[in-house]
Every structure is written in structure tokens, then in C-alpha cells.
């Protein structure tokens, strides 16, 4: 059996939370907004908002939960702003995948990510929180501010939609 041990020390500080969780939160945001720069900004914003509340959150798990909610909300806002900002982009400028993307993400993964991007934001959030963050239904409900029943039904519809998109992608490639 392999064991990773950690030394226990004094209560966590915001700086420690930042060092420990920044990368995973940026990854979470990136899965939602599909843009590293926006994801970093979302996470910076989340920590900025958290700093003022840090003294009232002694439990590091509660702190992580708060940060996660902030990241999800911030990602949603970033997507809304992006849609607004896109109105100012000349219409002849198409979305073009960078050819080097083929080298860094396997084809099958790229298909799934592309399909995920086409889901409604709420559906994408539920799937990312479930299948990447590994949250329970109750944790997802808390993070999104919705009922557990909504989480269930949203996940179900999202998986159906994802399957449908992947199937039609496969048929289009034939």
C-alpha cells in the first residue's frame, strides 16, 4: 500500500488556499468557459471576493465550497459578457480551431469537449461538477443554488443531449 502523508500544521490561510486550490479552480473554470485567460480572471475574482469573508470561514472545506460557487457564478458571468462582447466582433471573423489542438487533445476527447460546449450553460455546469469535480448531487445543488431534483433532471437531459450530439457527429463523419 502506498501512502502519501502530510504534516499537519496551523489553521489554513487564504494564501495557502490560493496556493493549494488555484490550479484546480482554474481548471474548473476553464472547463466551463473554455478559455484559460477568462478562467484565471474568474478565479482571481473569486479569491478577491473570498478575502473579505475569510475570517468567517474557518473550515477549509467550506472555503473551498464558497470558492467553487464563486467560480461557477463567475464563469457564467464571463460567458454572458463574452456573448455581449461578441456582438462587437466583425461577423466575418470565424471561430477556427488551432491546428495544434489536434496534437494536444486526442480526437475522441476533442469530440466530447466540442459537444459539451454546445450544451446549455447549466447543463455543462452540472456535468463538469459531477464528472470532473466529482461532487455529489447535494454538493452540486449547493454550488448551483438549485434543488437536487433539478440537478438530477438537468444531468439526465444533458447526458441525452450529449449522446445525441456525439451520435450525429459520428454520422456526419461517415
Amino acid at each position, binding site marked *: 500500500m502506498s501512502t502519501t502523508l*502530510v504534516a499537519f500544521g496551523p489553521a489554513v490561510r487564504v494564501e495557502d488556499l490560493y496556493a493549494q486550490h488555484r*490550479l484546480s479552480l482554474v*481548471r*474548473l473554470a476553464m472547463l466551463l468557459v473554455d*478559455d484559460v485567460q*477568462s478562467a484565471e480572471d474568474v478565479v482571481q475574482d473569486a479569491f478577491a471576493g473570498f478575502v473579505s469573508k475569510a475570517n468567517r470561514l474557518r473550515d477549509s472545506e467550506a472555503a473551498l465550497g464558497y470558492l467553487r460557487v464563486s467560480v461557477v457564478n463567475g464563469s457564467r458571468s464571463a460567458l454572458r459578457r463574452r456573448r455581449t462582447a461578441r456582438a462587437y466582433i466583425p461577423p466575418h471573423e470565424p471561430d477556427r480551431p488551432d491546428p495544434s489542438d489536434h496534437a494536444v487533445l486526442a480526437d475522441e*476527447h476533442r469530440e*466530447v469537449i466540442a459537444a459539451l460546449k454546445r450544451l446549455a450553460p447549466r447543463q455543462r455546469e452540472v456535468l463538469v461538477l459531477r464528472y470532473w469535480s466529482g461532487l455529489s448531487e447535494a454538493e452540486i445543488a449547493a454550488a448551483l443554488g438549485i434543488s437536487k431534483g433539478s440537478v*438530477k433532471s438537468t444531468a439526465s437531459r444533458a447526458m441525452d443531449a450529449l449522446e445525441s450530439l456525439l451520435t450525429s457527429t459520428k454520422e456526419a463523419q461517415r
Partner: protein
Amino acid sequence: MTEPMTTLEQRLSAALDARAHQVTEADLGPGEVPDPERRGHRPLLILAAAACTTLVIGVPYAVAQIHNAQSPQRPPATAPPTPTPTAPGTGEGADWPIATVGRIDLDGDGTDETMRLRTDPTVSLNPMGYTRARLEVSLPEGTVYTVFGNAPAYHLEDPVDIPGSKGQELLLGVGTSLEVFSLVDGELKQLEAPADPPLMRRTDKEGRSVTWVADQDGLATVRSIAPVPATDGDVAVQRWAWRVSGSTLVPGDSSTGCASVLDLGTVVSCNAVGDQSLSPVDLPSFPMSVDVHTFITVDHQPVTARLIPRAGLAGDFVAAGDVRLEATVGDHTWQVDLPAGGVPRLYDRGVLTTYGYDRGILVGREGIDGETFQVFYFIDGQLVMLDVPHTKPYLATSSGDAGSPLAGMRTWMHGSRLYTAYGEVRNGQNVYMWELDGTALKPTLIGTYCFDQDQVGHPC
């Protein structure tokens, strides 16, 4: 136990993981806790973000360079953070589905930490539950994890406060054995325990029944002094209470007493046995109501369930009236009445019925023909008994009587999901997985499997 995901779920999980790991520390700008006063002044960043949507994250270095050029609020470079304890979401098994979540006050500071048991999602139809697992505890300094090799049925027990240490101890069931973890000198360590008395729940080579008990008094091993009879009855037992001494578990002096074969952990004075005037109504053949601390959680709180017979008994069966199932989460208790029939059994393992969300409570009813099962699920704040079909396959296990309605049926739990094997197809059986459909359980045929002598199923 494993939690078999569908093919689509596996694809999604793998794709998300691959996508997320395209971003590394090297891709991020120099990080520093932001100044809250600087929030909100981001018009340049909004347009910059919009422009960057045409870029693909597959070129991480290029994105980082552009980001640095267009982010006037990027704080100055700081020294890289000192090596930290494992961050959440890293290490082997970090992306495995969570099987169980619990809370434990590992450091004794009065605040609970979260403990999680993750299981390898490799699909393997094995009723014995062989799998790998990752145990992690989120301490303030970071997450500590341990990955276990193949073994049957890892499961997280409720934590217990064993005398001799400051905080609670983490109990991990590995097959029939128990492993105990504690915080020693600031480190999470498995406590070494002697081979005897054993920490397990089984019958030993001498035919003696052994169990361990965790309650408000701590952790104890109870073992019958002589081989136990096949039927129920009372036996003389030895009991050892464990205590923590540094990084080891030490058994105290043993005490003797008597216990029921059906409930070895409840040790009473032997003089008490036989003194009571018994009647089928006054002393039922199974405990009146015993709190079962399940591995189910709702809103991070554990579910404690109990069965309460509300009728007289005839022999070992509830002959009239009904049985009430109570489930308590925090201050709230739900109640559902079950009809009479069969010896009711409450299982502490929750049942997964959909996409790996909340678990349902499993109750068995044992009768002459075998055991039938019922699943109770929290739906929209209510505890609901899920409907099961009245046509085969039943959610049941036959007692072996070829003439009974349950003949040929076998139900088991694997990865917290329920499966039923039924019927003879070529040399195998059709295997069904039970899934939630509204407020009902529906069997879905997943294939025809042949079972070897170890009861491991392989596609025929």
C-alpha cells in the same frame, strides 16, 4: 466496491480530465492573492477575453504570453509557492468517482474534516466486489490520500473516538478486516495492530465468530470463546477494548460475557441470560430497533436508519402488523411503513440507482422462498419506497428451492448497484441492472454472463 459508469460517462470523465490537465501551473500567470479593492475594473479584460475565444487552449504557452501582455492588473511575479501537501484532485485515483463521503474530526479540534472513498471505475461484473480504492482526507494543510490495490469491498465505516488519541480514528473496512487510521504527530498513519485479537468480522479457523464494535465507548473486538452453533442462541464471548498508543493499537485486558449469535457485539452478563420470562411478543427474535449507521449521506450528513416492528411475532417472522422504516438525517426523521412478511433486514450499504447520485436505503425481507428487496429513496424531500415490477426478474434471491417463485434468481450488490441474475441462457444467465425510473426500479438487461466458481461473471 466499484461504481460502473456507462460508456458515455466514462468518455465524458476522461475527456474532461484530459482537457483540464492541458492547463498546468506553467500555463498560469504568476499568482498572488488578489486585492479585493481591484475588482470590477475590467473592461479591457472583457474584450481581451472575447478576442481570445478564437484562440485554442491547445497552445498554452501562446495564451499565457498574450494574457500577460493584455492584463495590466496582473500582479508582479512572486516566488513560486513552496511545495504543498497534495492538492485536491491530484494523484492516482483523484478522478475516480466518489463511493462514500464522511466526516471525521481527525485532529480533535472540534471541527470535522471531510473523508472520501473513491473507487476505480473499471467495469468488472464481480459480485465479490474486487476493486481498487483511494482514501482521502481533506486536512487544512491539504489532502492526504492512499491508494489500495485489488481487494474485495473497501468501505468507509463511521469514525470512532478510541481512547489514547486526541481526535477520532478513521475506520476502513477491507473485505472482512478493519484498518484503523489516526493522526499521529501531525501525520495520518495506519495504526499497527497485533494479529490477535483480530480486527475483523468473520468466523476464524477454529470456528469462533469474531466481530468488532465501534460505539461511544470506542473500538472493541468480541470473539466467541467456542465455535458458534449454526443456529441462533447465546454464546460465551471475550471482549477486548482497544486503545491508541502512539502509532499502534493496543488491546486492553479481555473481559468475558455472553452475547447472541445474531448480535455478537452486544455483550451482557451471562447471569442475565435465562432469567427473563420470555414470550414471542415481549422479546422478538431480532432486535426491536437498532440504529444502523448507513454509508448514505444527504447534504453531507449521514443517514441513520432503523427498522421498528410494530406487531407481534410468530417464530422468526413478523406474522401480523407491519414494520416501520425510520431514516434520520440531522434533526429530521422520515418514516415509511412496510407490510408484514418475512424477517426484515436493514443493509448499511446504500444503493445507487442513477448516474452516481444519492443512494437509497436497502431493506431485505427473508422468507422461506428466499429474500426479496426493497429500496427506499429520498425524492423531493420525501422517503419513498420504489416500486418494483411484478414480473420476472424479481428483485430477489432464491433460497434454492427449485419449486419456489424465486427459483433461479440471484440478486447482489456490486459497486453500490443492484444486479439480478435470472434464467438459464446457454451456460449462463441473463443479468439485469436495476435503474431508477421515476419512482420505480426497472431492470435493464446488460448481457448474458457465465459465472465461475468464484462467482465472477464473464460474458458467455
